[in-house]
């Protein structure tokens, strides 16, 4: 599939997955990929502290949009700020300040579960309606919470049967359940626990929240070693002799250990990727393991390239 076509399949892509799998990294890579294909992108961060400013070397995000990169903007969306926005545009400016200052929002949000989520998703919906960007990417909360985040509009439709919140919930459900407007991109790692969790999350999102699922992104995959590159000292010494290079015993030991480690991890990963494919009938896109603990601009670019290749192969 062409990247430009993929990026215009849905206006809103929600990137979701367990904590630590690289949601924000994938969000950044997808944004750069889409921008390269000519789309304007808006990234919406909904919780915690965003890693995006470190990746793009920009100031911290706020409720106002910030330019991250050519064609890529980003902003935060908090329930409090979304509520003020909502009340102000619905002629209730006077109570908005009081609701927040008195702490009543917390009580009301507890009384009406999903209230905070609907405020955030409602704002995403209005950003979509006003065509704030060709593609809006939402960096969703961590897995367990992502399910309730996406389920809350349906829950609210039952809990609040009349009034503006009901309408808001209905509008958000309409957005979420229309594949032309919205899809979820799940991110996982090729390891036992994240794979099990992503399978569970995928079924919960599709069956219970009724949101369309895009390809699953399998992050941090080791590329296979070329044939003949084995974890055997003997093979190594034979190769060294054949090409006339001296390799010390100590170096041979390190070289072989590193190959051994990589082959073992690769085997574990391969097994998990197979299991994911069997249990979850969704296309997969593998992103390479980058040998660095830092995700900065060069890493985002490398992953964006890999993501584009993955999309083209779909």
């Amino acid at each position, binding site marked *: 599939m062409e990247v430009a076509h993929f990026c215009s399949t849905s206006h809103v892509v929600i990137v979701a997955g367990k*904590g*630590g*799998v690289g949601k924000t990294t994938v969000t950044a890579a997808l944004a750069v990929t889409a921008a390269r294909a000519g789309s304007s992108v808006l990234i919406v961060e909904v919780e*915690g*502290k965003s890693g995006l400013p*470190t990746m793009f070397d920009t100031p911290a995000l706020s409720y106002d949009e910030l330019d991250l990169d050519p064609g890529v903007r980003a902003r935060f969306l908090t329930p409090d700020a979304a509520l003020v926005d909502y*009340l102000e545009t619905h002629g209730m400016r006077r*109570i908005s300040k009081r*609701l927040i200052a*008195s*702490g*009543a929002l*917390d*009580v*009301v949000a*507890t*009384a*009406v*579960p999903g*209230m905070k989520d609907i405020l955030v998703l409602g704002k995403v919906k209005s950003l979509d309606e006003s065509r704030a960007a060709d593609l809006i990417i939402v960096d969703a*909360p*961590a897995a*367990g*919470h992502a399910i309730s985040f996406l389920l809350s509009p349906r829950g609210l439709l039952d*809990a*609040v*049967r*009349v*009034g503006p*919140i009901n309408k808001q919930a209905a509008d958000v459900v309409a957005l979420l359940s229309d594949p032309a407007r919205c899809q979820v991109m799940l991110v996982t790692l090729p*390891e*036992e*626990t994240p794979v*099990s*969790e992503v399978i569970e999350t995928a079924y919960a999102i599709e069956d219970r929240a009724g949101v369309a699922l895009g390809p699953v992104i399998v992050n941090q995959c080791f590329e296979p070693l*070329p044939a*003949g590159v084995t974890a055997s000292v003997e093979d*190594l010494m*034979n*190769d*060294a002799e*054949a*090409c006339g*290079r001296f*390799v010390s015993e*100590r*170096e041979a030991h390190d*070289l072989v*250990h*590193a*190959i051994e*480690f*990589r082959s*073992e991890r690769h085997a*574990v990963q391969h097994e998990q990727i197979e299991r994911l494919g069997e249990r979850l009938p969704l296309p997969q896109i593998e992103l390479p393991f980058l*040998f*660095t*603990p*830092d*995700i900065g601009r060069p890493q985002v670019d490398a992953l964006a390239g890999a993501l584009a290749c993955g999309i083209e192969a779909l």
Partner: protein
Amino acid sequence: MTLPDGGRIASLVSEHEVLICCGSGGVGKTTIAAVLALEAARQGRRTCVITIDPAKRLADALGLETLSDAPSEIPRYRWDDDHSAKPDGDLAAMMLDTKSTFDRLVTGNATTSEQAQRILENRFYRNVSGALGGTQEYMAMEKLHELHDGGQFDLIVIDTPPTRHALDFLDAPRRLLRLLDNRIFRMLMMPTRAYLRVASVAVQTFLRTVARVVGSEAIDDVVAFFRAFEGMEAGFRDRAVAVEALLAAPETGFVLVTSPRRDAMEEAQFFARQLDRNGQSIDALIVNRVHPQFGDEAPSGLRAAAAELARAVDDPAAHRLAERYRNLADFREIAELERAHVQGVQARVGATTVAYVPYLSRDVYDFSALREIGSLLFEPADSRA
């Protein structure tokens, strides 16, 4: 790189009565909590681990099939199959059931069983108790306090829930108090008291406006809840104060779990600052999933060797060798970068003890793997091969 100091790490589980494992999502908090509990039990302490959301296979290993309100003992043969642990230790585990813990708290504090019933049946209460608005964190701390008070265990290790803001659990007791103290909702309970009737008119107006937005049913539930709660605040307040005191007590230790990745390290520092602001400090920093070193050669030299070998034309042996050098260079590079992060963070979080858990080539979900990590953490480096 500094190697783990087995001696000091050992005192972590032998000297504390409570250990709180915190850290950002995906760094392996639950696993580390289980490792620490297992080690304490092996040292002969009666230990309980409270987990919030364990991965299925780890839950199975710990014998945790369902959420529960009380710890269940793990049969000794399962965690000490070779009889190498000290005899008087016990190991118990529980997977926190937020709702039933909260129900018990209400029942225990209610003045009459009718009052308890009114609250338990209230829809607002059911939302509050269903793991919303920090309730999970608060109930985790509540359960911790209850078990600590009960005296059945020498050590309780608790895993903290993944939260939007990593230290929500520290703030949880106060948050519930804030909810109960909320001016507007406190006034809701006042109409029965004549002298506040005036204030309540303004409140009613405000609530009617809120009801226009969220529906009046929700507001009715809230009002009913706060009325039903009358007379119980004192008990809840005492409890919250006691939980806070336990978190600040010297017998409570904080274990910060992180990975050597930059984002996790940044969060670890953020954590340390937050804890410091609360007057607490990190007793141990555990850096999980550190890549092995694979010798000490500089990545640049290895890369140069790979490049030179790759230049050979029509020489598959040279290309295979180049691939091996490139691979070692990659691993050496990540190992060095990780260690640089770790060195920096060690000073910045001010942890007394820092320990490393290497990246294992398999996933951790049974007692033998927990033991393996435990021995990497607790056995002094020089006693290992």
